[in-house]
């Protein structure tokens, strides 16, 4: 009996197709998360939709490069971030020129000083959702990528490091600096809305 007979071959093809279908289903289950992150990596909804479709096309094409049992989410988001970098889609804005040496408390201090409000929730509510979206889009992409993956994509520092192919220490420093830039932008947006 030959192991490479037509029946064995047919079974192998069937197994392969089943495994592939299962992989595709698992990847599709992550699409809401992929979209949410993609939406914040690029400027417009249309670009995000294109980016997500390209990510899925590539993921389906290169499914054999995924090792079953390893982190599928990290594998998929790595495709997403690599495509985003390759295609030069990010609208690079000039880094903010203001000094960032103000501490972590400054946004609170500023909003509190303006409003005279006591309650922390109230103070946060003074920031509009649109203002937050606008503020994040003004954060330079290296910092924004990390914030988006950790704070919106719910990835650990370790996963974010793997996805972006940077050391974990860099994830932490970019996150810290990125959040400060975000808060600085929020302070500007909030002050702008007051005017």
């Amino acid at each position: 009996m030959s192991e490479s007979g037509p029946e064995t071959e047919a079974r192998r093809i069937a197994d392969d197709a089943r495994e592939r279908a299962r992989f595709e289903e698992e990847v599709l289950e992550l699409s809401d998360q992929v979209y949410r992150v993609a939406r914040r990596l690029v400027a417009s909804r249309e670009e995000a939709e294109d980016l997500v479709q390209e990510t899925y096309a590539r993921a389906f094409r290169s499914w054999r490069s995924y090792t079953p049992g390893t982190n599928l989410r990290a594998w998929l988001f790595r495709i997403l971030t690599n495509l985003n970098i390759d295609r030069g889609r990010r609208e690079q804005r000039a880094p903010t020129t203001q000094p960032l040496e103000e501490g972590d408390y400054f946004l609170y201090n500023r909003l509190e000083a303006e409003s005279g409000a006591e309650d922390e929730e109230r103070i946060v509510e003074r920031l509009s959702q649109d203002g937050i979206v606008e503020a994040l889009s003004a954060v330079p992409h290296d910092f924004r990528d990390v914030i988006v993956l950790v704070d919106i994509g719910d990835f650990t520092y370790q996963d974010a490091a793997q996805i972006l192919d940077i050391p974990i220490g860099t994830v932490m420093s970019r996150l810290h600096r990125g959040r400060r830039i975000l808060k600085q932008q929020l302070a500007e947006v909030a002050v702008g809305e007051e005017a």
Partner: protein
Amino acid sequence: MLNPCEKCEEVLQPFLDRQLSDSEHAEAEAHLDNCSYCRKRYRFEATLRMYVRQAFAEQMPPDLKAKLSALRTPLV
């Protein structure tokens, strides 16, 4: 030498990200228990993070989901 409030501000982010060691975490908590200045600012930061997350809870357009399914390998 940092005063306790400066120290507290310095560990704000790693505290919220649960990246502090047990002893550092306990030290920060002990300060927060006794300092309304830092407590308010920490609570603000925690609320802000939730608020940022909510701002980005945008749903995927339904037709995109269908487009992604269409990219699947056809079963032959």
